[in-house]
């Protein structure tokens, strides 16, 4: 490692940089790869530009240091290399103070400009979303549309700015959508605001970025950016209570749901279940996952979750449910009708 020519250093860095890009693009195309290097939101794209600028400046200075180091090590092999006196005040001042000062002031200035741009969206926010952080899931409200309550999923119209108001109900969390916007923490007793805006439709995975206890790892949410028309349709569906016509089995499932302990913790608008401890389940059928990203939303995992969610997401607040063998399929079929 010690005696590499300067050229090898630069080649290795270029190789590494391409590796980075390749990986960013390749992984998963149905859902956008969760990555800060694959930015499609205004905020994240600006920071991505800043990152590549700082990356290349760093690689240049790293090459400079490697050249100096390599030269010093290479020089020692020459016969008669003798100790030169002097204090090299000039070299240390120029390389160690003047050059870094110039680079730092430029980078600091760009940083100020980008930070200023992050403060407010380009045009006034047309949609407001209230997010309440819980220990280990996200409660989502759309104040403009009465009754529009969901969990771990947030839809936003493409091309429009969305104001996101952040509160928390227990401990500190952090709202981070890597592809769209740098993170903002949810602080006790404080209302924090951030905004999202993207021109590219797609679903972007987001995750809590402040250690908040055992299941901090599985406190994800999906931000779905879609054209205005489908956004309005989704919002209407979400705001609407569960009124789909039920088959006999599904009706029995509904009865099981209302009499058992489910109703004491969960709300399904349009039924007698009004518990507020757990998430609102009115549109559980159409959600992207169970347990804020802990398991995919299909019949098998739903059954496993209802019977004993501690096996999938240990430590979460939902105790195992004693649902009898014949009631379970009815309950599942009912839950899947809640679109």
């Amino acid at each position: 490692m010690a005696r590499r020519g300067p050229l090898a250093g630069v080649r290795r860095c270029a190789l590494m940089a391409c590796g980075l890009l390749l990986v960013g693009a390749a992984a998963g195309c149905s859902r956008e790869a969760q990555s800060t290097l694959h930015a499609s939101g205004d905020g994240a794209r600006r920071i991505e530009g800043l990152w590549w600028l700082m990356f290349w400046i760093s690689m240049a200075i790293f090459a400079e240091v490697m050249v100096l180091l390599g030269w010093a090590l290479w020089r020692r092999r020459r016969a008669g290399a003798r100790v030169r006196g002097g204090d090299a005040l000039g070299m240390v001042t120029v390389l160690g103070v003047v050059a870094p000062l110039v680079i730092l002031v430029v980078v600091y200035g760009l940083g100020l400009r980008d930070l200023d741009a992050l403060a407010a969206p380009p045009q006034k926010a047309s949609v407001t979303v209230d997010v309440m952080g819980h220990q280990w899931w996200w409660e989502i409200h759309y104040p403009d549309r009465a009754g529009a309550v969901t969990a771990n999923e947030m839809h936003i119209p493409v091309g429009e700015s969305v104001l996101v108001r952040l509160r928390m109900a227990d401990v500190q969390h952090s709202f981070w959508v890597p592809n769209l916007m740098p993170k903002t923490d949810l602080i006790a007793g404080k209302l924090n605001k951030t905004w999202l805006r993207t021109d590219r439709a797609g679903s972007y995975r987001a995750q809590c970025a402040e250690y908040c206890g055992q299941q901090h790892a599985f406190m994800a949410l999906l931000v779905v950016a879609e054209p205005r028309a489908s956004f309005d349709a989704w919002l209407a569906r979400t705001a609407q209570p569960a009124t789909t016509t039920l088959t006999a089995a599904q009706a029995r499932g509904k009865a099981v749901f209302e009499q058992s302990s489910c109703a004491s913790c969960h709300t399904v608008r349009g039924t007698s279940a009004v518990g507020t401890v757990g998430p609102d389940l009115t549109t559980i059928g159409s959600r992207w996952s169970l347990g804020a990203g802990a398991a995919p939303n299909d019949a098998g995992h739903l059954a496993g979750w209802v019977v004993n969610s501690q096996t999938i997401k240990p430590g979460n607040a939902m105790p195992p449910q004693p649902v009898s063998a014949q009631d379970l399929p009815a309950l599942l079929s009912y839950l899947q009708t809640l679109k």
Partner: protein
Amino acid sequence: MSVSTEPAKLDQLEQEWGERPSLHSWFSTVDHKRIGRRYMVTAGIFFIIAGLDAMIMRTQLARPNATVLSPEEYDQLFTMHGTAMIFLFSTPMFFGFGNFLVPLMIGARDMAFPRLNAFGYWVFAFAGIVMFSSQLVGKAPDGGWFGYVPLTDKPYSSGINLDVYSLGLLFLGVSTTIGAINFIVTALKMRAPGMSLNRVPLFVWAIVATSFMVIFALPALNVANAMLFLDRRFGAHFFDPAHGGNTLLWQHLFWIFGHPDVYIIVMPALGIVSAVLPAFCRRGVVAYPLLVLSIVTISIISFGVWVHHMFATGLPQLSYSFFSAASTLITIPSGIQIFAWLATMLRGRIVVRTPFLFLVGFIVTFVLGGFTGVMFAITAFDQQVTDSYFVVAHFHYVLFGGAVFPMLAGIYFWLPKITGKMYAERLSRWAFWLIFLGFNTTFFPMHISGLLGMPRRIYSYPGDLGWDVWNLISTIGAYILAAGLLLVLIGVIHAVRRGAPAEDDPWGGDTLEWGTASPPPPYNFAVVPPVHGLHPMWDERTTTALATGKVLEGHQAMTTSELDGQVEGTIEMPEESLLPLAAALAILVVVLGLLWSWYWMAGVGALFVFGTVARWLWPPERSPEEAGVA
């Protein structure tokens, strides 16, 4: 080297300063060399335990959705890994280096307060035992090393885990503060005659600057931990917004300590680099005043950068920018140091040995860590990647690269002086390459998984996010790194047991510790050497004085003036005593009493503390003439 003309006087000194190797003297020693060695061994053991914590975590994270660890176990492991590495390994290890080397480098016979030094070690050892034993019973702290409230406050962390955290750190704070005071007073008052401030070795500058940072940083942590304990145990409301408290108060208080603390960890290591480099470049480090400038300015600015840990908490952007400015411009002193070392190599005749290899490894990793550090100083970019694996990669590059590499260089460099035995060169070369390769394989991929949006402190992750390959590489790297560190351990144990006896000055170093025997006699210097320049051992006036000068007899040490090292007089050094151990045990009783809510026991312990300290400082019986009565 220091064979004086009067052997009789040497035997007299040996008899007065020496401690018969017995169990009693093991517990009652006040010799800074024995205490320094003990600090390093204990910190080394804690490093191994915290390192094993990291290995288990890396095994859990090797594959997605792994079940090696439950979330609760993982949380305790990552908290103990962070807390132990920062509090129980790095600062004590460098206090060990400082304890052993500062008196030798400044030509003193011991630290200014030898018994206080022993007391500091015992308190550190007991605090470490208390914190690690909580891990054995599964009650280790699990709130992260910076333990943000409200998660670490009562309703959300009801176990005793966080009481272990706050009381353990309060207990440890006693030892760190005492060590810092001891270093400052030793460096100010006990330098060899002639050693004015511009002739003080850079390692001593680094240790004294670190001590001043400890003096001004630890109080913020102590206040924060005291408030947390009062909140948790007695229902105070410092951090409870419902009753007028403020959760950001914890973050401010913690990070006012937190960031100076990471410089408290790195600064002694930078001092070690400046102490080891001259021996392998056959010349002093260039631009000595600029290096002193960077040590002093880094120490001061480190107190004005703490809010860069809180850039995502929604404070006014103008407040952020003051700290972003200081965090960005603190790079310049680091830049001065890096280019000064490179200039020293360029202007010197390099001799490649293992310590020098670790210095090269240090420069490569610390420079990379420095770049990502500057990136974090820019608020906008920090908001995107803070609390992700990118920050995990950054601080391992600057903490492992910046502190552990120089520490390993220091261990190999001073092993002959500390133990009197030489290490095996071939084995240590293998150790270096394994560590360098393992380190980069472990932590470089974390930059990438961080940029791919992987948050830190997650016990597991789903498989479809593109993080798997990077985490697997990191785990493989961790095993290589562990192998390298194991080779270091084997090399040191082999050297101590069966190594070749080392000469007094195997490297031709320039600082005064190479003027003593290996290992140094109990009294260090028979003749307190006059200093005439920055490199005493390369200055024949000092070396001849060491050999032929006048012996300072008795259990005496010389004190000199603060700025110019003019001789002021001599002071009587205290004998060995068991009171430091007794006082440390008394405080342990108080801490355990508070931890288990046996408040009467804590009360009794407090009485014992007063009793032992009163006895410790009790002045000797003096006749009126001797004391001087009008």
